[in-house]
């Protein structure tokens, strides 16, 4: 039960034949993402993301802990991905599978190891206390391209999250509540996202943002992690058919274009949400009655 149901022969052959004729099942072009929908919950850092039928919820949380001994100036940042049976009947609760370790690896490489979140800014008092930021990724529905969707969701969450303000007074760490002081945004150094390419028909057809069926019919995949400035922070071809080196170079520029577009979409969603919050905050303050 731990495997996705295999594709039928007819489906596989049809998908390959359609791609040979440059058509996809949902009428997209090879370099087109599915419609991306980002919405935010009540709290900072709570992101609901829908990429086509793939649906993900990300929660960012912060707590004060002791930094690791070997890096007293650094805070902690962890991405936690758990695939539960809610996302797909092929996944079992509490039993890690290949997809899980694979997606975690890509998320770690693209976001954590590329230092997208400046962990030094999370330090409160050297060697004594620091912030530990944790991103929990929940997959609610799975229809392919989990990596890219999770990457977008985590990056959106990090940009949206506000941690409580903390200061050091007389060697004592004081954490202010959200009501006392305006919470602080995290220090994001750059905005990398991953773009996964799937190869078909001896790598003659390469597409982005595959659905589950397309993913199952694919021969190989190529993951590129890149930021708005065109700096590549991750590239991997885990398995599958060979992809021409020249093809990889051209795909990199496609990835850059996609990442710019996705980041613009994230920004738009963020601005809209922050504007809404500002308006609601004002309304809250200007109310005559106060709740006792």
């Amino acid at each position, binding site marked *: *039960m731990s495997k*996705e*149901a*295999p*594709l*039928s*022969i*007819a*489906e*596989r*052959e*049809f998908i390959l*034949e*359609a791609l040979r*004729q440059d*058509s*996809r*099942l*949902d*009428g997209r072009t090879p370099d087109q993402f599915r419609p991306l929908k980002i919405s935010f919950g009540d709290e900072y850092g709570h992101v609901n993301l829908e990429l086509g039928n793939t649906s993900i919820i990300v929660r960012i949380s912060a707590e004060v802990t002791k930094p690791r001994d070997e890096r007293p100036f650094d805070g902690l940042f962890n991405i936690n991905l758990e695939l539960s049976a809610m996302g797909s*009947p*092929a996944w079992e609760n509490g039993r890690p599978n290949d997809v899980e370790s694979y997606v975690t690896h890509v998320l770690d490489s693209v976001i954590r190891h590329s230092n997208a979140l400046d962990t030094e800014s999370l330090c409160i008092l050297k060697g004594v206390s620091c912030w530990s930021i944790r991103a929990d990724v929940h997959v609610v529905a799975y229809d392919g391209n989990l990596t890219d969707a999770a990457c977008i969701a985590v990056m959106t969450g990090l940009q949206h999250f506000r941690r409580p303000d903390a200061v050091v007074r007389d060697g004592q760490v004081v954490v202010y509540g959200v009501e006392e002081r305006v919470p602080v945004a995290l220090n994001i150094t750059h905005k990398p996202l991953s773009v996964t390419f799937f190869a078909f028909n001896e790598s003659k057809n390469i597409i982005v943002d595959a659905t589950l069926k397309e993913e199952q019919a694919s021969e190989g995949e190529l993951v590129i992690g890149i930021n708005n400035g065109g700096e590549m922070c991750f590239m991997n071809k885990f398995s599958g058919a060979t992809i021409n080196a020249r093809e990889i170079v051209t795909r990199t520029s496609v990835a850059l274009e996609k990442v710019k577009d996705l980041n613009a979409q994230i920004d738009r969603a963020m601005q809209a949400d922050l504007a809404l919050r500002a308006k609601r905050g004002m309304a809250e303050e200007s109310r005559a009655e106060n709740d006792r």
Partner: protein
Amino acid sequence: MASPLVLLPGDEVPSRHLPSNKSNPLKLGPGLRLLSQPSSTSQNAQSQHVLTATQAGIVTTDAKRNTVSLLSFPNRRYIPTVNDLIIAQIHHSSVDYFHCMVTPHTAHALLGQLSFEGASKKTRPMLRQGDLVYARVLSIGLGAGAEVELTCVNPATGKSEPGGLGPLNGGMVFDVSTGMAARLLRASSSSSEQNESIDGLVVLSELGKKLESLGGFEIAVGRNGKVWIDCSNAGESAVKATIAIGRCLQTVDEKGLGPADQKKFVTRILREMKLVS
């Protein structure tokens, strides 16, 4: 028929809604059960039979074929019911049976190696893993863990009745909700006025009209939420036509388009795919 009657699980089907045709036995569709209820008065020893709904849905009846069934909501889960037509995928084969997947991640259904039209030990179809068959649910067994059995042949006549049962070659399968699959099946079987008033499903006839010039298409609808489409007559535009039909069905299903919107959407998609000018 006036306003449709909506039933919730556990509700009884009022007897005035049942078809009055007495010559044939009444046939029950999925979602309905015949329960015998001991009568409250002790003198009357004879128990009474009532029809109760096991799912929520709209009661629909067909007087001609003397059936009563529930038109349920477009849910995704499929529970096999006897006589349902389904599209199954061969998982593996054993000496006597093909083991088929009806829905992913449920127990396999059995399809006899010889339950095909005209099949004998020598002429039986050699199906490989991943092949598709259009089959009828023969029995669902009793109790938990019971095996579902499928067949592609009517055991009484030895023919593949209703027509078209058997292996599906080529084409493409699209997933729709089970409710949509039921609507599509009803749209093809019952009289047109009756089903437009209840279902409002015109997408198939519209597609049929528009794609006639290309050579038409073949379609098989499985109650398990799968639709198989083959346009191999359409020559070069076969792939595009298949995709167009699949997209139309899926969008009508997801967005619950009304008849007018369905027609508009079909025209739009066909123009987008450059199939009709």
